[in-house]
């Protein structure tokens, strides 16, 4: 005898487990039991297999692994007796699922049991097959199940019918085999068979149109008749469910009729009477009756139009909606969602009641009602509905606020009749539940504000008020910070007052207060702080009286732990301290954000082209003409090379160009407004490889490009949350320019020596006796450019060129700028020019040094294209030329 098999009985084990006080204790008991069962399994103990399987199921239910019992189930099923088979099949259904390969082993046992003489064993097999069969098993055993649909005992027929449902769901191809046996079941009297037969027909219709046609043509009338009998049958206690005779049967009939009637006028017509009868006669006091009514309403809504029936259905729903039972109200809301498609007007009538349901204490009902309201909103009712919803937002549960806010925002965006209303509603939502508002929503709000110039003042004042009371709502603060940064002066001066507004007195320092609070609040995240920092910079320029205070706030963050903020603080501080003259241009108001671009971006259809979009929006307001790109291409097309460009160190090149441009900043002293295309020319010079048709303005002196450049670099900065990116280098360039300026200040006297020859000799002295003759590189009517050359020792590829410009005319050339482009094999490094103004009548000159490195020294001669831009009496002049006659050996 097996020493383990005398182990505890099932009841004792359950008791022992229940007596455990801790999880560890329970694990110990379970481990011990499992060990016993494993031992019994390996001993192939048959006496206690039954008990062990039962124990395993209990252990399984507690969540412990029991895979070692799977084979025991199969063995148990394979044994001859009913008790073993019963527990075996139960174990099979509990411990295994259709994915386990072990399941395939049971197919044969199932087949035998489906043909067993004991009908209870057949029942067990059908039940197991119905609950866990896989597609393969379905194919193997479908003929047996099909045959059992005609079994003598109705209890087997009903099990076979449900088993068939599983089979056709797993393998829809098998559906056609089941159509006619299923139709035969509809004529049965036994309720169980009828219920399962109708269900089988319903599922057949779902997987096979052939079945649908078949049942529609041959069975609709019969079904209507049977349902009529069922509805009119006398009360039968056997099928009683709280006073209603067999609601399950009613419901299944109604469901099948719905499928048959859908899209078929004849079939729909045929069932009208019985539907009307069910709808009017069913007792609505109990849940069972309401279940039937609910199903009936759905069928009426789904089948082909019959206005009389629909009125009946909508009335039932109205009654449901006013029911005190939450379940009934829930299904009414559910049903009304479907009814909208059929009769939106009728649903609108219940709007007030539905709105009440949004405020229900039950989360399931609230959710349903909110979705329904969302469908009910249209242009005509958006205002009152939104008001209701926003009012409710104030008192709703925290966990519901997220859903509610999302829906309100979506409604407001979709149906808003005018911008002011939109802004008003959004501000209310932001003040109530700003923390639940998604980023896209407040981004969109900023775009709308930016596009409503007449509402700027109104909005910034409203935001100022809102942020005083609801400062804890993050997104509200962000929008407010952005608007105060942009439209701060409108806040202070009450610009653009609307009639409905009351004037408020806000001092400049009050506005800065808001930003300072946002900056310092511990709950503010980095986005809010970064936005505040930018807004502060903007205000420092707009409110000169607060400039010092703003500077102090910014300085406080110079030591901040967040790198981004620290870097910005340092940069901004340097702008405030050292670049007073360019600051106003730097902190210009944002150009109007393009709504189309934004919405496109939101939809994900446009790639986020940061630079181009800001670039174009910057250019557009200034109305710059688009000259053909040809001159530029010419300028660059020096050799037969397709892409004549500096072959490397684009960045350096840019820096050089910037350096050149930045040098004259002091003399500019912020007087000239930046022509917008300056940067483009610069960028074009760089993007030589692919000369695109870019906007350039040839008559624009590039000299003023630094401020323009800074403007572009700040503009992306203002793009709300795009905090990272290469901006930092660009932004820092104005600050970084100061050393260059200093350097130049020191150098310019010596550089602007008029005596070329002296310099020439200087250079030649440095250059180991190698002397190249100076050339007149370019000469126009009044402008002369001399090149003198020298070579650094030990580097034959490199040539240092000193260009000397002389102005022979009687007018001073201002905003003078020289640009050069070289073929691909040459690198060019331009140093800043000595001055940006060229005295008249040859009384002095401008010099500019640059270094060229010819990577094919000795094989190809140097070549260069040049472009000189300057102003004469305020008139832009552009001169271009090509230099081929460099001395040999360069």
């Amino acid at each position, binding site marked *: 005898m097996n020493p383990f098999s005398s182990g505890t009985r099932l*009841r004792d084990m*359950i008791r022992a487990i*229940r007596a455990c006080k801790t999880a560890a204790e329970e694990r110990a008991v379970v481990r011990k039991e499992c060990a016993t069962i494993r031992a019994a399994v390996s001993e192939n103990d048959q006496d206690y297999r039954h008990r062990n399987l039962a124990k395993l*199921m*209990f252990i399984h*239910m*507690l*969540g412990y692994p029991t895979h070692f019992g799977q084979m025991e189930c199969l063995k148990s099923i394979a044994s001859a*007796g*009913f*008790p073993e088979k*019963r*527990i075996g099949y*139960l174990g099979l*259904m*509990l411990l295994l*699922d259709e*994915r386990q390969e072990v399941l395939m082993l049971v197919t044969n046992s199932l087949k035998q049991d489906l043909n067993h003489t004991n009908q*209870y064993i057949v029942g067990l097999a*059908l*039940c197991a097959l*119905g*609950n866990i069969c896989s597609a393969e098993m379905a194919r193997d055993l479908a003929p047996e199940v099909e045959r059992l649909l005609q079994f003598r005992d109705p*209890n087997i027929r*009903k*099990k076979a019918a*449900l*088993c068939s*449902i*599983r089979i056709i*769901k797993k393998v829809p191809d098998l559906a056609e085999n089941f159509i006619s046996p299923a139709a035969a079941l509809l004529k049965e009297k036994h*309720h*169980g068979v009828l*219920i*399962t037969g109708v*269900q089988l027909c319903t599922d057949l219709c779902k997987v096979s149109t052939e079945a649908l046609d078949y049942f529609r043509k041959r069975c609709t009338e019969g079904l209507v008749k049977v349902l009529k009998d069922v509805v009119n049958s006398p009360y039968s206690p*056997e*099928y009683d*469910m709280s006073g209603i005779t*067999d609601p*399950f*049967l009613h*419901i299944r009939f109604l469901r099948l009729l719905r499928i048959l009637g859908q899209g078929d006028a004849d079939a729909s017509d045929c069932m009208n009477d019985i539907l009307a009868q069910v709808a009017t006669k069913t007792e609505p006091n109990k*849940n*069972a009756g*309401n*279940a039937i009514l*609910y*199903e009936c309403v759905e069928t009426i809504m789904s089948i082909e139009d019959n206005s009389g029936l629909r009125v009946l259905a909508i009335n039932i729903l109205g009654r449901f909606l006013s029911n005190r039972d*939450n*379940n009934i*109200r*829930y*299904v009414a809301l*559910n049903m009304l969602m479907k009814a909208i498609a059929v009769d939106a007007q009728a649903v609108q009538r219940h709007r007030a009641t539905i709105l009440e349901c949004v405020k229900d*204490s*039950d989360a*399931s*009902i609230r*959710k349903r009602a909110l979705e329904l309201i969302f469908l009910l909103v249209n242009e005509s009712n958006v205002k009152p509905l939104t008001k209701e919803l926003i009012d409710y937002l104030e008192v709703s549960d925290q966990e519901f606020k997220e859903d509610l806010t999302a829906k309100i925002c979506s409604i407001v965006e979709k149906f808003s009749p005018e911008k002011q209303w939109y802004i008003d509603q959004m501000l209310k939502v932001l003040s109530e539940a700003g923390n639940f508002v998604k980023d896209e929503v407040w981004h969109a709000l900023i775009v709308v504000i930016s596009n409503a110039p007449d509402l700027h003042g109104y909005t910034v004042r409203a935001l100022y008020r809102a942020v005083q009371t609801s400062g804890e709502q993050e997104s509200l603060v962000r929008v407010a910070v952005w608007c105060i940064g942009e439209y701060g002066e409108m806040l202070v001066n009450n610009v653009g007052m609307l009639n409905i507004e009351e004037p408020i007195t806000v001092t400049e320092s009050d506005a800065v207060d808001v930003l300072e609070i946002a900056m310092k609040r511990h709950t503010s995240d980095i986005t809010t702080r970064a936005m505040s920092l930018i807004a502060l910079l903007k205000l420092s320029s707009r409110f000169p009286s607060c400039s010092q205070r703003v500077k102090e706030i910014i300085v406080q963050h110079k030591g901040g732990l967040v790198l981004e903020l620290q870097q910005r603080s340092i940069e901004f501080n340097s702008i405030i301290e050292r670049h007073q003259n360019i600051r106003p241009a730097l902190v210009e108001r944002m150009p109007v954000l393009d709504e189309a671009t934004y919405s496109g971006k939101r939809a994900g259809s446009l790639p986020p082209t940061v630079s181009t979009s800001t670039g174009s929006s910057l250019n557009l307001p200034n109305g710059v003409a688009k000259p053909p790109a040809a001159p530029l291409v010419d300028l660059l097309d020096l050799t037969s090379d397709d892409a004549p460009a500096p072959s490397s160190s684009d960045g350096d090149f840019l820096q050089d160009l910037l350096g050149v441009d930045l040098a004259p900043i002091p003399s500019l002293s912020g007087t000239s407004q930046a022509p917008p295309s300056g940067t483009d020319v610069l960028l074009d010079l760089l993007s030589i490889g692919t000369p695109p048709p870019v906007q350039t303005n040839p008559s624009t002196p590039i000299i003023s490009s630094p401020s323009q450049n800074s403007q572009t670099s700040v503009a992306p900065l203002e793009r709300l949350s795009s905090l990272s990116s290469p901006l930092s280098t660009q932004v820092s360039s104005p600050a970084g320019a100061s050393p260059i300026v200093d350097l130049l200040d020191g150098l310019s006297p010596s550089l602007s020596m008029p005596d070329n020859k002296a310099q020439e000799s200087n250079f030649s002295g440095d250059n180991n006796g190698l002397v190249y003759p100076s050339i007149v590189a370019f000469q126009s009517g009044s402008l002369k450019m001399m090149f003198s050359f020298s070579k650094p020792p030990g580097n034959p590829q490199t040539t240092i060129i000193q260009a000397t410009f002389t102005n022979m005319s009687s007018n001073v050339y201002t905003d003078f700028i020289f640009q050069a482009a070289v073929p691909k094999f040459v690198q060019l490094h331009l140093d800043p020019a000595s001055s940006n103004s060229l005295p008249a009548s040859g009384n002095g000159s401008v010099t500019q040094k640059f270094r060229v490195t010819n990577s094919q020294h000795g094989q190809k001669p140097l070549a260069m294209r040049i472009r000189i831009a300057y102003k004469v009496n305020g008139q832009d002049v552009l001169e271009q030329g090509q230099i081929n006659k460099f001395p040999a050996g360069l």
Partner: protein
Amino acid sequence: MIHFVLLISRQGKVRLTKWYSLYSQKERSKVLRELSGDILSRGPKLCNFVEWRGYKVVYKRYASLYFCMCTNQEDNELEILEIIHHFVEILDRYFGSVCELDLIFNFHKAYYILDEILIAGELQESSKKTVARLIAAQDSLLETAEEQANTISNMIVQATKK
């Protein structure tokens, strides 16, 4: 279609689980965790439906036990409530005013009864009497088999003694 049936005690202990749709063991325990949290925390006067992962879970509390059935969105929730009640009434009739302990110690019998009511997630029988009769018939088969076994084993025992 009913995707699964759960019986959960008020303390969150699982008393019965029946899966008609495919859920791996891992998913099953996740479902149990999620749903018992969702359902047990709901107040008494609220509706009996919880929307969950695109399905609807219909639950009803009887004494200390929550009976939960998960169905498709488009199914008739009120009918599911009736199916739950049908099941409870049959259990009640079988055990004679059923309590949680009956279902703990005779969990397998609760499964047998459920298998007479639902197959493949669909209702099988609307007559409580028929279900009771079928269960009784199978139980009696069990008893006869046991009696037989007893007599045989008795005979063997006696035979080995001799």
